[in-house]
């Protein structure tokens, strides 16, 4: 087969074009957000919020409201509940997160089962990127653009919040507000990514690109380039592979991201396992008598 056909044939189908555009948008916005999440240590929080939005999405569907609205409400509710469960001090934070998000996710599953609709459980849980409609695409695009705009406008404040919230407070900014902005964006982004990979794998898009970028650079500005580029590349590669190998596209996108992470983990110039071993060997040789 002509190699060009490998790239062009899938583009002959509208659903493939929509799948590519949607997954690249979702991957890029998740990747940008992931740069802050991995630095703050909010990976588990990302997992929690992305699962906890499920009942919000279902209820929004029932009343005909935008998915994002339901998602934000339940994302915030999850964060508030986690704080409430943890604050008396008996239950540790990881347990509080685990309890709240699984129970909210379960509520979402139950709601889906009683909702007379075409909301297909499998599509929400595992994503339905090949079934994205033009309306879905428009919604994803609007949410992604809003989230990216907020992230880029507030990026220095958010980085300050991640690095030194005490200083943010000391110069009159509100760390609480900045944290709330990030959590709101997390909820919005979860909705975007849900279309592509489903609730279960959203957290992958929200962690892996940032973690990969963090292995490759010591400059936050470069992380904000590397993460979305690797994520967009993974999305395109994953979709093509899923087309030609006839396998699950959401899963394939995350697999490609995982492979890129593994490569960075092993071979990153400074922080990779291999270069660390080589560096350790060199310094041992240098200090040997």
């Amino acid at each position, binding site marked *: 087969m002509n190699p060009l056909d490998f790239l062009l044939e899938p583009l002959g189908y509208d659903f493939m074009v929509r799948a590519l555009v949607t997954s690249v948008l979702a991957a890029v916005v998740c990747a940008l957000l992931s740069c802050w999440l991995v630095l703050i240590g909010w990976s588990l929080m990302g997992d929690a919020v992305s699962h906890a939005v499920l009942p919000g999405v279902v209820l929004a569907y029932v009343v005909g409201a935008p998915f994002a609205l339901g998602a934000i409400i339940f994302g915030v509710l999850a964060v508030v509940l986690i704080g409430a469960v943890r604050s008396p001090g008996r239950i540790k934070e990881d347990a509080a997160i685990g309890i709240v998000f699984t129970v909210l996710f379960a509520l979402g599953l139950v709601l889906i089962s009683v909702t007379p609709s075409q909301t297909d459980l499998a599509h929400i849980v595992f994503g339905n990127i090949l079934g994205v409609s033009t309306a879905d695409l428009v919604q994803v695009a609007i949410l992604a653009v809003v989230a990216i705009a907020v992230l880029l406008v*507030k990026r220095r404040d958010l980085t*300050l919040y991640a*690095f*030194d919230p005490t200083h943010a*407070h000391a*110069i*009159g900014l509100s760390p609480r507000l900045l944290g709330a902005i990030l959590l709101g964006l997390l909820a919005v982004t979860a909705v975007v990514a849900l279309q592509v990979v489903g609730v279960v794998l959203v957290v992958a898009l929200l962690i892996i690109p940032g973690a990969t970028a963090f292995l490759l650079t010591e400059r936050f500005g470069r992380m904000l380039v590397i993460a979305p580029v690797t994520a967009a590349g993974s999305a395109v590669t994953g979709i093509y592979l899923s087309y030609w190998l006839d396998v699950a596209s959401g899963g394939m996108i995350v697999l490609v991201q995982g492979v890129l992470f593994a490569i960075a983990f092993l071979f990153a110039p400074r922080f990779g396992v291999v270069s660390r071993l080589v560096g350790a060997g060199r310094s041992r040789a240098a200090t040997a008598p």
Partner: protein
Amino acid sequence: MTAAIAIDALSVRYGDVIALDDVHLELQPGRVCALIGMNGSGKSTLLKSVVGLVRPTGGTVLVDGESPARARRRGAIAYVPQSEEVDWRFPVSVRDVVMMGRYGRQGLTRRPRAEDRAAVAEALARVDLADLADRQIGRLSGGQRKRAFVARGIAQDAGILLLDEPFAGVDKPSEATIVRLLRDLAAEGRTVLVTTHDLAAVGALADEAVLLLQRVLVHGTPAEVLTPENLSRAFGLETDGKGAL
């Protein structure tokens, strides 16, 4: 003259734990004050009360005669955190960190203007880190790290600098450099409040010292404060054997 920091009947409780109890303390501008006490004596809590990070259970804190919230919005307070509170792998350069001192004075996106760059360059030169400005913050020595955060306070042009354990993990030559720097900043009229349990540094550093154990035990010149009797009250019975004295 308005006190730089005026603390009146301050009490702070965390649940059942009393961190500070009826603390009175006034600091004049242009002075370096060392806050001395053992772990759990309330030193950090006192600093955090000045910057408004902990809510007083009772009493008041005034900074330049106004509430800490107003002083923060003016950019009057700089806070240098303990080393353990900082993620040293964070992907920011020394220059980035110092630039964060300017954020309160910048527009919505904190895009640096020429005057911000100039202030940062000047602050870096002041603490002798101009050559290392592009290094990742964790690739500095303990003393250089502290100076980077002090430079952030200088770039902020804060009148009040609060430093939590600035000499922890810092070697002796660097300690002397930091002491000189803080003395210079006080000579410009800034107020410097430092927590430390490194008693050896206090004499060279501070104009006044405070011994803290939930309340102010003594407040005076370092010579007045650092007597064996006072120290045994503040630290219990560990004053005789320890080399730190």
